[in-house]
């Protein structure tokens, strides 16, 4: 058998495998390429396995060949065995990343060696280290081209592991503005209060569209992100949420039940020294500066 036909055969097998990303069995190959002899097939597959085009699985007693992702095949080119092992572990972890301790345990490599391997891979831009938002000291490794998972990066609210409170505040204000624009329709609606109430409700998707149209966010916000913001509005007491019959959450702006009570209208209600204030002594109501400012 010439080298050329050998290459052609491999190409054909690979094509079949590419069409079935879940993997192919011996039968599939013979069905797709009926002219092949089983001896040729065995040599071809052996070669392909050696060149690491395929992963080999045993599924219910049948051998399954699955094509490997192209990048990983190229990535490990020219790497030694340790690097390959570590790389595979990191690859497996996907966009959740893997902790260095777990790599060590699972690869059985010594600490110094592992650090060296990781450094190597990092310098080749094959993997990257990402800081975890939950624990600032914890670093996880993942493939270079992957976007870190929400649980690692914290989602849209984090920029380089820092929580962007200003961004959240702005979104909070904008969401409230959107809801409060609608809230007026409830009062004395000529078509009845239920229609009025429905008009004041806004679904999270509507709010998300409004926020996206405003263009204040450089990152794309999902409906989930907007729901977290809307929930902060609920906790601020500026909105209440309800559920539509179809299960989607809706929000509407509300006013507090009572205006500011007497306690906060006097300086004492907000005074930081109130618990130190007495009839005699250094802090007394008679010559209190806060009172003086308030009365003037």
């Amino acid at each position, binding site marked *: 058998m010439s080298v050329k036909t050998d290459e052609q055969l491999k190409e054909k097998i690979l094509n079949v495998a590419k069409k079935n990303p879940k993997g192919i069995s011996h039968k599939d190959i013979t069905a797709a390429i009926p002219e092949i002899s089983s001896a040729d097939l065995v040599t071809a597959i052996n070669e392909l396995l050696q060149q690491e085009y395929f992963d080999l699985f045993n599924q219910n007693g049948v051998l399954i060949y699955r094509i490997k992702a192209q990048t990983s095949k190229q990535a490990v080119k020219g790497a030694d065995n340790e690097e390959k092992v570590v790389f595979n572990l990191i690859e497996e972890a996907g966009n959740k990343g893997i902790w260095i301790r777990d790599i060590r345990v699972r690869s059985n490599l010594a600490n110094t060696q592992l650090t060296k391997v990781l450094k190597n891979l990092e310098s080749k831009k094959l993997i990257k280290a990402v800081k975890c938002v939950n624990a600032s000291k914890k670093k996880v490794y993942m493939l270079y081209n992957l976007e870190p998972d929400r649980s690692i990066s914290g989602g849209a609210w984090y920029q380089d592991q820092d929580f962007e409170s200003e961004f959240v505040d702005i979104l909070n204000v904008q969401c409230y503005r959107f809801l409060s624009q609608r809230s007026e329709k409830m009062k004395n609606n000529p078509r*009845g209060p239920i229609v009025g109430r429905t008009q004041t409700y806004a679904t999270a998707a509507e709010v998300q569209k409004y926020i996206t149209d405003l263009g204040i966010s450089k990152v794309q916000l999902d409906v989930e992100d907007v729901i977290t913001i809307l929930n902060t509005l609920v906790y601020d007491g500026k909105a209440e949420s309800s559920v539509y019959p179809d299960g989607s959450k809706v929000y509407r702006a509300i006013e507090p039940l*009572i205006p500011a009570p007497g306690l*906060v209208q006097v300086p004492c209600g907000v005074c930081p020294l109130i618990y130190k204030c007495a009839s005699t002594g250094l802090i007394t109501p008679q010559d209190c500066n806060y009172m003086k400012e308030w009365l003037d």
Partner: protein
Amino acid sequence: MSHQLGRVVSAILQRYFGDIVQQVGSDLFTYGSKPIGMIVKTTGLARSLVIDSLRTLLKFDLATFEPSANELIADYKLIPDNVLLLIRYPRYLLQMKSKYGSEAELLVEELLQQATCSASVLLVTIATKYKDDKEKNITILKLKEMFISLVTAGYIQQAPVAELKEGSEVPTLVPVATIVPDIEIRPLIQAMSSGDTSELKDNIYWRVNYDRFHLDFRDEIMIKAITRRIDENAGELMRFLLEQMYLKSPAWAAESSPLCALELRERCRGLAAERPLLHQYVDQYLKVLEENGGGFVRRVGDSGGGQLCVRAGLAARELVLAALDHTVTERLGSKAARIFRLIRARKYIEEDDIQKNAMLVNKECKQLTYKLLEEHFISVQPMRKAASSGGLAKAVYLYHIKLHDVSQAAQELCYRSLHNVLRRARSTRTAHARLRDKLRRVRTIVHGMRLRGEPQRNIDDVEETLTPPELAVLQDVEKQLKQLSTAELELDRNLFLFKWYFMYPEK
């Protein structure tokens, strides 16, 4: 019965009754109940002064008495809650004026000043006072009618009668059922013209029924809250519901007995011209009230076109929560209020979860949580795990809100503030006492001169004894005192809310 309450009560007694009554009142507050002899001993006042003070306190229902162990002498006890009502008087008068007009206001004002009074003396006194006032046009006939309608509405009730029990020297006050009186007008007019009230044979004494006023205040708060949340029509509907509630259940019930929606519809039909929307969409309004009205109203059944009940207890809770939200917002900022509300929504929550849901920077969030804890707005419940084999047994700290305790703390804060405002007003008054005195004297002299018809030049001379800087200071002081008294009223409103909430037992 806290230290702060004692300070407020003492300050109020000082303001309205002077130093001696204040001394006696504070003494009673500190020691609970004690007989006259003991009061004389601890206060060091003359016996006659103590007796006079006690008389005043008893007259205004600020203290009670009961036979002590040996049945011959009485123990006296202060009623701090009633002392606090003294600063609510302006609100009672305003309520009367807006609801029944100026005659009712005069009646209640006079009755509040007299504490207890017989109907005929009350009517004659007021009529004599305003005999010459052409503007108000007060006649004894109108006053009498108003008195009767106030009694019927329950704003005025019969004072309790003292009864001597057998074998005891100390009388007990027995409450009397109020019967609407039938007042004859002729002897009153005679007494008015002769100016002698001693001949009036009237021994039924009356006093103001604070509770009836408080019910009005409660209704007003609830209606206003609904109006803020939904709209005026819903507020009106709430008013009807409350009116119905009075007919069917005890006025302060935490949850009313079921009310029939059919009757409400009837009521709304009557108002079709005034509130067409309410009439047209009664059922929708009821539904919205039920779903978005802060839980004030609950549907209990569908018979008879729907059964509803008013949940006053829950309403009090919601309103107190709203007040607390405001307090937290003002004291620690809106971010802290967010945490406060978050904890409330979740009942029990871990620190990590607070950070995740409140969308705040970790450090800031922790700081605010601890600040809330420090000011007793939230509490922490540690959950210790059984000692595990490896490493430290980590405890879970759950944050939660004990509403009753938080409200107590906020009420204390109100007492403190109220005391401070009273105290400040007092010191402002004493600081400018000389000037205020002078102003008063000048005004009396000028008034007298005007009556005598003296020339304008002389009047100007007298008026000029007050220099412009003095006038400026006086104006300033007046402004300050006005602001302080507004603050008193507002604080009292706030206290009313808490008192209403504490009326229902902790769940």
